[in-house]
């Protein structure tokens, strides 16, 4: 009986987190359009509902009713599988992110995380790099040169930024002395203990790599409109296209959530309950995403590679070494 409640509890938590992230994705698009509009002296969506709040719903319904086009040149199996592969990793990350203080229900202590994995960081690194398979497969299977170029660019970019992405988290692991996200959050109980202030360089590297990992401007070369039509999802329409979009926004959300958890204290905060703090921090990071997108022009491809290999990678390595020395001396 205890096992059954445990399983039901897990399934409930999975459903709640999944739906929350899905809603988050929808409203991330709204936030992006609204904030980007106001940053550009426009208004963004205004007509559908108050402040255009029902715009994501309208967009979703529109996308569902669109025709699902399959190009004749396409590899049908991979064309179908690719969006699913791109869709899943962003949601997987949320399995290990702690969303609040454990609560007591009917005498049971329920931890507010889907799975309290003791190697949470490794799990996150693994899942975030899985997303590239969907993008690369989509680019290859579409049978279009723009898609192929987008897919190839994406895989090259992701590989070069994966290194610095992983290395930027290493100093934090050294400081925290654990791979478990729950323990990390427990160590950052007040704002003074946040790891951003312990190691700001790691945070900057992490954030740049995170933007590059999720293929967002100014690193949006895989879907550069001016060069590649829409990059790897040029040939996609309808629900498959929306799966790519949801996957991209889920990736952004997950990367923001990881940044909030690892660097900014996760759900820790005064007055409000834990989940609210996490959501607030994720929203702040999403706003930074959009702010960066509104500001910087797209990098050239060689500049992108230069930044990844010649700047961020040595900087991350140096950061690891310096942090190690300081930790040894102190």
């Amino acid at each position, binding site marked *: 009986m205890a096992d059954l409640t445990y399983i039901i509890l897990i399934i409930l938590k999975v459903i709640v987190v999944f739906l929350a992230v899905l809603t988050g994705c929808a409203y991330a698009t709204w936030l992006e359009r609204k904030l980007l509009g106001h940053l550009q*002296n426009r208004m963004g969506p205004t007509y559908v509902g108050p402040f255009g709040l029902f715009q994501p719903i309208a967009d979703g319904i529109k996308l569902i009713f669109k025709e699902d086009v399959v190009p004749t040149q396409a590899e049908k199996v991979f064309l179908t599988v690719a969006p699913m592969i791109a869709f899943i990793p962003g949601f997987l990350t949320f399995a290990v992110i702690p969303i609040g203080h454990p609560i007591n229900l009917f005498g049971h202590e329920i931890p507010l995380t889907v799975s309290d994995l003791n190697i949470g960081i490794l799990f996150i690194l693994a899942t975030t790099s899985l997303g590239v398979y969907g993008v690369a497969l989509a680019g290859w299977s579409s049978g279009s040169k723009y898609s192929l170029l987008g897919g190839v660019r994406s895989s090259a970019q992701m590989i070069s930024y994966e290194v610095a992405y992983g290395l930027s988290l290493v100093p934090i692991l050294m400081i925290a002395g654990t791979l478990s996200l729950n323990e990390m959050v427990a160590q950052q109980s007040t704002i003074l203990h946040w790891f951003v202030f312990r190691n700001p360089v790691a945070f900057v590297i992490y954030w740049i790599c995170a933007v590059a990992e999720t293929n967002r401007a100014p690193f949006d070369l895989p879907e550069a409109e001016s060069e590649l039509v829409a990059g790897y999802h040029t040939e996609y329409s309808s629900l498959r296209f929306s799966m790519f979009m949801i996957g991209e926004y889920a990736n952004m959300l997950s990367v923001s959530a990881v940044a909030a958890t690892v660097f900014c204290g996760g759900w820790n905060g005064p007055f409000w309950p834990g989940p609210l703090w996490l959501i607030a921090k994720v929203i702040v990071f999403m706003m930074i995403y959009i702010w960066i997108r509104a500001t*910087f022009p797209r990098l050239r491809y060689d500049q992108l590679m230069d930044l990844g290999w010649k700047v961020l990678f040595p900087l991350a390595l140096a950061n690891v070494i310096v942090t190690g020395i300081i930790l040894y001396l102190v």
Partner: protein
Amino acid sequence: MWRYLWDIIKTTVVALPIGLYTVLRYLFKKPVTRKYPYVKSEMAPRYRGLHYLERYDDGAERCVCCGLCAAACPADAIYMEPAENERGERYAAVYEINMIRCIFCGFCEEACPEEAIFLGHEFELAADHRDKFIYTKEDLLVKHPRKDKPYKTIYRRVRRQN
């Protein structure tokens, strides 16, 4: 080596925050958007939109069907047929403007010796059938003489006596 590093520092630590700040300032400015179909903005006083045919203050039509507007029209959009009323004055029995041909240059307004045709501020002229673009006298002739707020000034407001 040092020059390379200095370039990196110059373009990251200095230049990027300046750009970010510049963009952030726009967040607090008022958007320039006009909610067009719901809120219509005032057109310029001399805007050239849909034509209208003026009347005298006593309600009679000003147009005498002289054909100067049709002659001036570079797009050949105006067609008219003259007739005489009971007082022996010429007037336009048929007056049509083809809005597909019209280029809204305003030459008809300039050519008119009777101050009869003017270009107004109406600009939403879309229709779903080609025939609907032939604007006849019913569409163009104003119902009452405009005394309070005419778009364009009329200098002679009273009919000539013969």
